[in-house]
């Protein structure tokens, strides 16, 4: 096997994107150095392997850190969308609960019904707050969102116990969406550095 073929094989230790851009230039540089020096000398191949061992791992670290940055960017977009959705669901929840309150007034509300509707309104306002906090996108905003979402789920569960009827939409808005948002807010992610 020729020396160039051996080096071409060694180049596979580098990430594909790096190889695609600089592989041919590296081959050329290897060929120049191979011609200039006694390529059969152990020292020559020692320096080539040493260079590979020093540079290839750092190239892979750069590739992985850039992938993490890309993932962080995508995650931040998803979080913004989730925040907007939470605000909209919060508004929807407040309007729905107020509608329930109006209906309850007409038919003569029981004490439990009034408490359940009030809790529904508070839960929807908490969901709205959580959405706004997510959109704020700061560390304190994240904490506020976590507390607001947990409190919102708790309110809905209490309201559900006081007034057992709950439609599918109310279930999604009141319980499923805050839990999904809570999981998203708590998902471990690194804040992108500006350096």
């Amino acid at each position: 096997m020729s020396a160039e073929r051996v080096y071409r094989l060694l180049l596979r230790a580098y990430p594909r994107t790096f190889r695609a851009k600089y592989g041919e230039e590296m081959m050329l540089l290897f060929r120049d150095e191979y011609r200039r020096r006694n390529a059969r000398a152990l020292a020559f191949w020692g320096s080539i392997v040493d260079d590979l061992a020093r540079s290839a791992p750092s190239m892979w670290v750069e590739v992985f850190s850039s992938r993490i940055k890309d993932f962080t960017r995508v995650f931040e977009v998803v979080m913004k969308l989730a925040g907007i959705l939470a605000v909209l669901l919060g508004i929807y929840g407040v309007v729905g609960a107020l509608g329930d309150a109006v209906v309850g007034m007409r038919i003569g509300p029981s004490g439990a019904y009034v408490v359940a509707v009030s809790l529904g309104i508070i839960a929807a306002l908490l969901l709205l707050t959580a959405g706004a906090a997510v959109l704020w996108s700061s560390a304190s905003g994240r904490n506020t969102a976590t507390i607001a979402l947990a409190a919102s789920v708790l309110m809905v569960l209490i309201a559900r116990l006081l007034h057992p009827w709950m439609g599918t939409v109310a279930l999604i808005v009141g319980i499923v969406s805050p839990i999904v948002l809570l999981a998203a807010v708590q998902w471990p992610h690194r804040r992108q550095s500006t350096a």
Partner: protein
Amino acid sequence: MPKKQRREISPESLLPLAPATFQILLTLVGDERHGYAIMKEVTARTDGAVKLGPGTLYGALKRLLEAGLVEQGSERADPELGDDRRRYYRLTRFGLRVARLEARRLDAMVRAARQKKLIGVATA
């Protein structure tokens, strides 16, 4: 890296430079060079103390290109090395500023070492 983002980086924030990085910038001051010419000049100037293998050299060039310190020049053959077309690299204005700042930093260190008589004094 987009030009807009490049301008936001202050040259001082890139200091101190790694020895190999500074040697590459120093080689590119005044003229564009291809990879092998950079490698040969650095080896000659440092008496082999800084060795740039293909991976180290192109890894450093990649980072310098991304940071906007170096840009690609023309692609042409080097008559001394044959017909193969080679990519030439040259310093950007930003790269020259960074190299100049690093040189001043090193100069200040050498002056301090001289003041403390670490260097420039005949040893017994």
